[in-house]
């Protein structure tokens, strides 16, 4: 099996799915001729033509809005927002329309589209290039939110997302794009949406982390036995897997790189505090960015959660 980076595995997923299903097409800024600023769609315009790998004007709302129209018509558009920091202009289309089309038309029109976007910090890029605002996409019902954490699940989750009948936001952790290599089967496979993955079994503490924070949790050295969960999909969330784990370990730490307040970690903590509090031996801890504006590169390392902070949280929670 080939050892691929995440850029390569996503590219492969797109290429294979386009070959398999002619309803799939790509649109976005610089996705065609240039192959995307991270080269995720490299070679696809040559392979499938400019009618299917579409360089659009610089119009985030228009891109997502057009994808909604395409999806309603019966295609399976995969739109790219060049960086997550530029998705804000498309939130109206996502909230007002993508999320509601099925409900509003009572199923007459649906919105099977994917919006891919590079996500997260740690690449020392200009402002708005390191956002992790997943929580904003998880609150309003009708959209699914997927965050891969490595080349293998990136391919399988993306194939599942494209085939899903609902709108899916696919957040690609930029820091991992070329950092990790994994064995990625050439074959067609999906990783189902809505299922978490227990990445490592353990007995002392359940640690939930997604995207590039999962890698950071793995890098954290500790003597304690961690049960590490990668949700893979934030909405719909796999509560069952999480609750079973927390009931077993009695301790929960959530790590995310977004600011703390109303981050997705809050939902995880709240759900556990509602449904499994009697099993807890310790407070639920969150290791997150502080509630400040994401800084430019010189300060970013003081903003993103560190292995040090994760270790401290583990040590703290084990004191209970």
């Amino acid at each position: 099996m080939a050892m691929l980076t995440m850029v390569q595995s996503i590219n492969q997923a797109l290429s294979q799915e386009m070959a398999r299903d002619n309803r799939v097409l790509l649109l976005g800024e610089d996705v065609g001729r240039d192959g995307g600023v991270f080269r995720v769609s490299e070679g696809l315009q040559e392979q499938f033509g400019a009618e299917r790998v579409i360089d659009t004007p610089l119009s985030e709302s228009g891109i997502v809005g057009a994808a909604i129209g395409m999806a309603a018509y019966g295609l399976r558009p995969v739109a790219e927002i060049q960086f997550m920091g530029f998705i804000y202009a498309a939130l109206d289309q996502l909230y007002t329309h993508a999320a509601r089309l099925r409900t509003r038309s009572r199923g007459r029109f649906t919105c099977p589209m994917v919006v891919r976007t590079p996500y997260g910090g740690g690449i020392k890029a200009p402002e708005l290039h390191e956002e992790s605002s997943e929580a904003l996409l998880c609150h309003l019902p009708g959209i699914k939110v997927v965050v891969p954490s490595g080349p293998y699940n990136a391919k399988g989750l993306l194939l599942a997302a494209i085939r899903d009948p609902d709108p899916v936001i696919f957040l690609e952790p930029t820091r991992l794009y070329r950092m990790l290599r994994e064995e990625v089967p050439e074959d067609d496979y999906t990783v189902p949406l809505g299922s978490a993955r227990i990445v490592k079994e353990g007995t002392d503490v359940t640690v939930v982390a997604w995207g590039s924070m999962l890698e950071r949790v793995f890098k954290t050295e500790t003597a304690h036995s961690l049960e590490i969960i990668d949700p893979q999909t934030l909405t719909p969330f796999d509560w069952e897997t999480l609750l079973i784990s927390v009931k077993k370990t009695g301790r929960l730490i959530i790590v995310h790189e977004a600011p703390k307040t109303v981050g997705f970690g809050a939902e995880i903590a709240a759900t556990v505090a509602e449904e499994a509090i009697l099993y807890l031996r310790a407070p639920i801890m969150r290791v997150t960015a502080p509630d400040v504006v994401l800084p430019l590169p010189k300060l970013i390392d003081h903003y993103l959660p560190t292995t040090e902070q994760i270790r401290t949280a583990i040590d703290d929670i084990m004191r209970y």
Partner: protein
Amino acid sequence: MPDQICASLDVHSLSILAPDGTVDDALMPPLTETDIQRLYELMVLTRTFDQRAIALQREGRLGTYPPSLGQEAAQVGSAFVLQANDWIFPSFREMGVQLTLGYPINQILQYWAGDERGQQSPPQLNIFPVCVSVGSHLPHAVGTAMAARYRQDPVAVAAWFGDGATSKGDFHEAFNMAGVFKLPLVFICQNNQWAISVPVKGQTASSTLAQKALSYGFEGVRVDGNDVFAVYRATRDALNKARTGDGPTFIECLTYRVADHTTSDDAGRYRSADEVATWSARDPLLRLELHMEGRGIWSKEYAAETLQRATSDIDAAIEVLETTEAPDPDDMFAYCLSQPGQRQSAQRKAV
């Protein structure tokens, strides 16, 4: 260069049917008398529907409702040219468009009664849900046109919106993409000169809305929106262009919102009775009647019959509306996602 003109751009305006009922023969489209009667009947249906809807709202049987009085020609005339397989993106005041295309009357009422089932377009029609968020449906029309072209389907796309919508970012992004991709798309603006209390002069400093198309490299035309033949002709031409791959067109129908913005509004607060009276006198229906009378295809009896038919169609629809069982709260879950997630499944049981 040095100081020279690098672009010269003209905007045309079109009118065919004069207030006295006479037409410009050179421009009159080849409509049969049956066609003309059909246009008339649809305009009467639209107006009658409007009156009944307002009455129902007053009785508490509908929610807030946006009247279309005065815009019948601009709505019926433009929708009349479309085909069943075309894709339609209305804003929220286009009851005349829905009625022309045969959208079930009871469903239109059902929607304004606050029931999503009213938005479930019948399978033979491709009419998108009414869009309350002004202008935000225009990118969908763009995407649909891109999809139709990609599929090589012989489909055109038409989108309606108001003068207020021209101020929204999505109007711009959609128009621009339509131009870049030369899409089979017709944009139809109902310039009824008001966006709630804001007159069109407060909406934009451009002297026509039609000229906004020039920004996007395609044609814009202003038509007399109270002249059903001009609206028909402009839309027909635009659709022909769309169907033959010659790209999008922007049609500005200059008309007037004779009634309040909605049943919750009181237009007397912000505009003069004089202005309303002036425009009421330019009634699109009256003008068409004069024309038809001149041609001998309109009579008081025919008018009464037409009204009678409209009324009984609407009565029948109201009957359906009022005998339809209340929506099932479970539908909130059934239609949110293709399949509810773990959490929604639990919540669903609790409702």
